[in-house]
């Protein structure tokens, strides 16, 4: 059997972002996949040398437009740890609200793109229609639809009043109802099952060995969620990681679908328990020392390593994003699958290339 080498990407209809894979195929079956990255590399970590540690918040928000506030939250938590700042309790709860809002919008976005990848365009439109409700919430509470810029070192800079809170909870009820209506269409549909069940299996051992993160890891049956480490207000909220055990494309879809409801529940809990109080404390002095800060993003665990030497500029900023951790599992899934399944398998790890390449 002769082998054919097929380039996939960087400009590909199913991918909104440039990712290149060199696929070696043998009779429509993928034998080998080699990724080539670097199309979106901007050299963002190096900017820490010419922008001071407060200006860097605006830059880390733009590491990725889909999980912007989570990047800023992770960075601010790192700086707060270096400067020994105790964040006010209300700010912690507000951070949870925005973070979970981001998770809902990211998962709805992914479900839509995933439906589009196997040609289910009306489902794509439905998920994105629901997602616009979350975008409205983000715009009303933070002033921007996509880049939710609310975090500062020491707290948050915007408040949510009682009236907005009521509106948010009403909208979330609507979102929960509408997403639930689509449940049969995405999870019980014959076409969807044909394209996802039993395809791209990542076993529990492999997922652990290759260091998968986020829903890719949880769909393989490992209950690991960075929110359990107890940052922000998560220790006071009641939740347990959503897990699936099959480890195939379908399990990853179910996992993300259920996390939407988990996130809605977390926002409700956060509003119920949110205390009154101030939004931010003014930090004194300059950051010194080194710290590792970790946050659970929609795609998995993001890790920030910060090193500061007592000046206003950071010595080193290192970001490890969830997609970077999920590329080795993807390369493990691809060999042996049909060429037609390649776009779906790439999408099931929810790749965020601009995060990965920064």
């Amino acid at each position: 059997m002769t082998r054919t080498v097929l380039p996939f990407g960087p400009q590909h209809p199913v991918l909104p972002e440039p990712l290149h894979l060199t696929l070696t195929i043998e009779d429509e079956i993928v034998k080998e996949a080699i990724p080539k990255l670097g199309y979106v590399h901007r050299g963002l970590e190096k900017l820490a040398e010419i922008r001071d540690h407060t200006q860097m918040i605006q830059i880390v928000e733009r590491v990725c437009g889909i999980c912007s506030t989570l990047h800023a939250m992770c960075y601010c938590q790192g700086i707060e740890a270096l400067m020994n700042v105790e964040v006010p309790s209300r700010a912690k709860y507000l951070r949870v609200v925005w973070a979970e809002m981001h998770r809902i919008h990211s998962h709805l976005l992914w479900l839509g793109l995933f439906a589009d990848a196997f040609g289910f365009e009306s489902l794509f439109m439905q998920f994105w229609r629901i997602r616009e409700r979350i975008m409205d919430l983000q715009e009303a509470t933070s002033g921007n639809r996509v880049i939710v810029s609310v975090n500062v070192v020491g707290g948050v800079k915007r408040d949510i009043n009682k009236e907005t809170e009521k509106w948010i909870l009403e909208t979330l009820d609507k979102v929960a109802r509408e997403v639930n209506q689509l449940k049969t269409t995405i999870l019980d549909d014959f076409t969807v099952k044909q394209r996802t069940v039993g395809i791209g299996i990542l076993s529990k051992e492999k997922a652990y060995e290759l260091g998968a993160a986020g829903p890719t890891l949880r769909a393989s049956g490992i209950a690991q969620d960075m929110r359990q480490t107890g940052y922000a207000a998560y220790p006071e909220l009641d939740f347990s990681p959503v897990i699936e055990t099959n480890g195939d494309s379908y399990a990853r879809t179910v996992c993300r679908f259920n996390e939407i409801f988990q996130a809605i529940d977390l926002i409700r809990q956060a509003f119920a328990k949110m205390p009154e109080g101030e939004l931010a404390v003014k930090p004194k002095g300059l950051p010194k020392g080194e710290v590792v800060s970790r946050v659970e993003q929609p795609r998995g665990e993001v890790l920030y390593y910060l090193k500061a030497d007592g000046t206003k500029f950071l010595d080193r900023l290192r970001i490890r994003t969830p997609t970077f951790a999920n590329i080795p599992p993807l390369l493990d899934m691809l060999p042996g699958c049909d060429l037609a399944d390649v776009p779906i398998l790439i999408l099931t790890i929810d790749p965020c290339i601009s995060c990965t390449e920064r």
Partner: protein
Amino acid sequence: MKSLISKSRVKSPWLIHFDCGSCNGCDIEVLACLTPVYDIERFGIINVGNPKHADILLVTGTVNHRNKKALKNIYDQMPEPKVVVAIGACGTSGGVFRDAYNVVGGVDKVIPVDAYVSGCAPKPESIIDGVVIALGKLAEKGKKVDQGIFERLEKTQTAIMAR
């Protein structure tokens, strides 16, 4: 026939979107334009994957040293008349990343740009507005391309017949 072509070109433009080192913020807003709330497809605008079918090129994000060739390549493959819309602060000038070492700058450093959309990330409304501005330029460029098209066609036909 000629008027039909120039009219339908502006009435039903096809666009291609290229992510050129963007943070995804602008990309998802471009996609949001297609979805039910904004729904630009009702105006006959279709998002295509092939540059050879497209009239309008939407570029989001900064140009870097790796993808500037890919961007130029896509631009060259589009047939005349064509217009380019640079989306977001990064597409116009490099935005917050302008000082980073791997960033060349705005899209206009590599290919000519006809309309700029500001904002980080711009709202779908302003993206649609930018496309409408670009459509005006597309109509003008189209007139130049169409000039003498039937004469040229006739000449080619006679040349073929004479052979």
